[in-house]
């Protein structure tokens, strides 16, 4: 059984005439790289703000490291965060800014500053004032700040924004390294689907404050993969036929009326013929397979992203 790092139950946030979050349930397990996918204003940042204590939920509750209520704040030292844009003092250098937070958090080992700066490739500009940083450099400093206290959980809001392709690639490697070598659980939000897909192992699709789907990468791959969708009345019998008559094992039973076959060699016409010969009433057979973007669009139920 996976250890739960973060869990929300019926988390809602309402402003006067606007519901930012509507009964959000989500679970993040230890070791996850958990991706929040949603459009601008979907509620990604609001969830993060509630979790990190920047705002309060209107209703519902959440647990971090099995603590809830006021006890959550005792666990803050186990969390590293970057919410919205990276924010630092413009008149201080990158090193001085991180030293400020080291002093604030009571971190006595100042060598840690050089370690995190090296991790985000900012060593060369550590004595440059923050206000002279490019957006990408600011993002990386924000990530360095989040990692300053050797956290168990890192929460990053749109960390990829403003990074160039090489920066994105390096950051992706950094996330994997932190996750696999240091065992850090990471929550990342983004509206850049392809990038989030490249780093995360679990996803939360959210729109207009509502959770559309919580899904693992494997499940997402299956949902998006090119396949033959077969709709029939006797799924059990059809599965037997697929295995015994056609030697197909790469399939998945979706529900009582649907099977998806992922074996690319299978042709629809041949499949249809075999199923009919074995007395299976096929009501539909068609090819499927969508891009991440199309999958998200179908979840949101809109044409335009």
């Amino acid at each position, binding site marked *: 059984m996976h250890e739960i790092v973060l869990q929300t139950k019926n988390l809602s946030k309402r402003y006067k005439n606007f519901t930012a979050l509507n009964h959000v349930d989500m679970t993040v397990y230890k070791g996850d790289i958990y991706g929040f996918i949603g459009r601008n204003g979907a509620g990604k940042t609001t969830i993060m703000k509630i979790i*990190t204590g920047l705002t309060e939920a209107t209703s519902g509750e959440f647990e971090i490291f099995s603590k809830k209520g006021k006890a959550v704040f005792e666990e*803050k030292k186990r969390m590293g965060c970057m919410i919205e844009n990276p*924010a*630092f*003092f413009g008149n201080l250098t990158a090193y*001085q800014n991180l030293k400020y*937070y080291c*002093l604030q958090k009571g971190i006595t080992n100042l060598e840690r500053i050089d370690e995190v700066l090296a991790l985000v490739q900012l060593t060369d500009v550590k004595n440059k004032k923050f206000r002279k940083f490019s957006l990408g450099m600011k993002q990386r400093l924000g990530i360095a700040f989040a990692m300053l206290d050797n956290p168990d959980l890192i*929460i990053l809001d749109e960390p990829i924004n403003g990074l160039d392709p090489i920066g994105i690639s390096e950051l992706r490697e950094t996330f994997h390294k932190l996750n696999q070598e240091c065992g850090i659980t990471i929550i990342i939000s983004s509206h850049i689907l392809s990038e989030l897909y490249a780093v995360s192992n679990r996803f939360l699709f959210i729109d207009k404050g509502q959770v559309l789907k919580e899904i693992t990468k494997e499940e997402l791959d299956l949902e998006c993969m090119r396949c033959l969708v077969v709709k029939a009345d006797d799924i059990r019998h059809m599965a037997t036929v697929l295995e015994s008559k056609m030697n197909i094992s790469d399939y998945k039973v979706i529900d009582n009326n649907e099977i998806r076959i992922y074996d690319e060699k299978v042709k629809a016409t041949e499949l249809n013929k075999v199923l009919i010969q074995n007395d299976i009433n096929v009501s539909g057979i068609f090819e499927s397979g969508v891009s991440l973007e199309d999958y998200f669009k179908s979840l949101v139920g809109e044409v335009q992203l």
Partner: protein
Amino acid sequence: MINMMRADLYRIFKGVGIYIAIILIVLMSGISIKMKDAGQLGRSDSAFDEAISYEITGDGSDESSLLVRSIISTNMNLYYPLIIIVFVLLVADFSNKTIKNTLTSATSKKKYFMYKMLMCLFGTIIFVTISNLYTYAVNFIVNGKAYTEPIGNIFKATFLQMPLLLGIVSFLVLLGFLFKKPAIFNAVSICFVMVFQLLAQAVYAITKADVIVKFMSKYELQTALKKLAYFPDSKYAVTCMCIGFAEILLCTMLGCFLFKKSEV
């Protein structure tokens, strides 16, 4: 809280704000000492000043031996450096949005508010005390014994003025948490004292009513600071202290409540 204080001190002395406040003090006190006259911001109505001066000295006698305390009596001049202190300690955190970093990783909203309030009050105590002692020391060096009085009097004047100054700083802290944005904070805090004084002057100019002059000479901030520097009767001093502490308490409770409810 100690860690946050260490961090803030590190940051403050890396910036320029604190040095601007110190330069302001050095200039204001230095000019007053050299000119042997306490300058002041705000009111310049001679009739108004005469009324206060009469109330303080009784007969308007020569105050040259009390030069330092006459400078201390114009400690309303410190209002603007005190705005800088609140800005550097608090509003800079909002303007840079670094408050998010602190709240997400180091402390809760309540503790953050209490820390900032205490830090601003503590900073005020240090700042005003050093300012008064600096004035005393420079006066002693420049003007000699003739213009000097026992240092105990300086401490006593500082002590009597402190609650009201702390009260006004707690109000500035409340404004900081309320407005968050530096432009609004600066506009309101700078205008606050001017609006009050202009209003008072206007009322006096129109009515010429002694009742208003006496009322103002009693508890209006600038007037009260002036009177407290000259050791008024204990009833007046205690009342001023109560006003100062009540203001601190009110601003702390209101500010903490509003900040906890607000979104960062």
